[in-house]
């Protein structure tokens, strides 16, 4: 089954919307919610174990796709750093009148700082727009997967999934 994901390496919106982890537009408009971009049946379930509200279900067999119960989900983002696929995001369409807040996992250096203006990118790494860093969470419980939250224009909420990687953070000497 050729798909955008298997041909190019990232899923199309259609592939995502037909998976059980992608919240409906109407739900997203109401407030913070998780966005799970995991559309292949792989043997994995830490997302299910991580959610304190039981909003993600994988069940048995472990290769089931993760299904999001958007009514139970509060968009808290606890599941984001637990997913080994770095495939979970959180979206808050109510952040302001014009902007949405997007949280995503980030494991590169340099780590952005709140207030930084950075380039937001889409699933294929293409620059989409400028964004403002709102929060950076690097708590010990995240186990070295930082969760970065940025503000982006609402119209890009379905497209933006991260920030441009910069390659100068490791101080190669």
């Amino acid at each position, binding site marked *: 089954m050729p798909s955008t994901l298997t041909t190019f390496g990232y899923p199309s919106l259609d592939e995502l919307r037909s998976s059980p982890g992608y919240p409906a537009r109407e739900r997203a408009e109401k407030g913070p919610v998780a966005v799970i971009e995991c559309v292949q049946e792989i043997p994995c379930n830490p997302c299910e174990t991580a959610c304190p509200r039981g909003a993600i279900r994988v069940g048995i067999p472990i290769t089931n796709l993760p299904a999001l119960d958007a009514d139970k989900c509060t968009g808290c983002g606890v599941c984001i750093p637990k997913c080994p696929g770095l495939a979970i995001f959180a979206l808050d369409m109510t952040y302001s009148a014009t902007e949405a807040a997007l949280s995503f996992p980030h*494991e*590169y250096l340099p780590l952005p700082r709140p207030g930084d203006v950075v380039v937001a990118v889409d699933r294929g790494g293409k620059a989409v727009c400028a964004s403002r860093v709102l929060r950076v969470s690097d708590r010990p419980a995240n186990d*070295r997967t930082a969760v970065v939250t940025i503000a982006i224009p609402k119209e890009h909420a379905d497209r933006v999934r991260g920030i441009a990687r910069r390659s100068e*953070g*490791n*101080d*190669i000497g």
Partner: protein
Amino acid sequence: MRIVHHPVLGEQPAARTVEVTVDGRKVVAREGETIAAALMAAGIKVHRYTRRKGAPRGLFCAIGQCTDCVMIVNGMPNVRTCVTPVADGMTVETQRGGGPAQAGGNTRRRSAGSGDRVRDGDD
């Protein structure tokens, strides 16, 4: 090219350094690392030249299986630099063919649990 900061592994911890001489050049290495790592940190990529064609070889498997990385260490040829730790005062030389007077013989015999791969017959 040492990786000083790393998002998962953190800062490179301090280590004692040792000095090795590579083809006459002094190279500072971290105690405990392999010769191959010290060379790579110093930007040295060619470890040896093959016997027949004189083709350059460098690190390939990094686990002691392919023998591409062998060099002359303290006068002994055919030492697999990817699994041999550095030591202070060590001399390391680029190897040409089997080394001086083909001493040391078959490189593959030296490596237990290895010898699975010969890259193009031109050892």
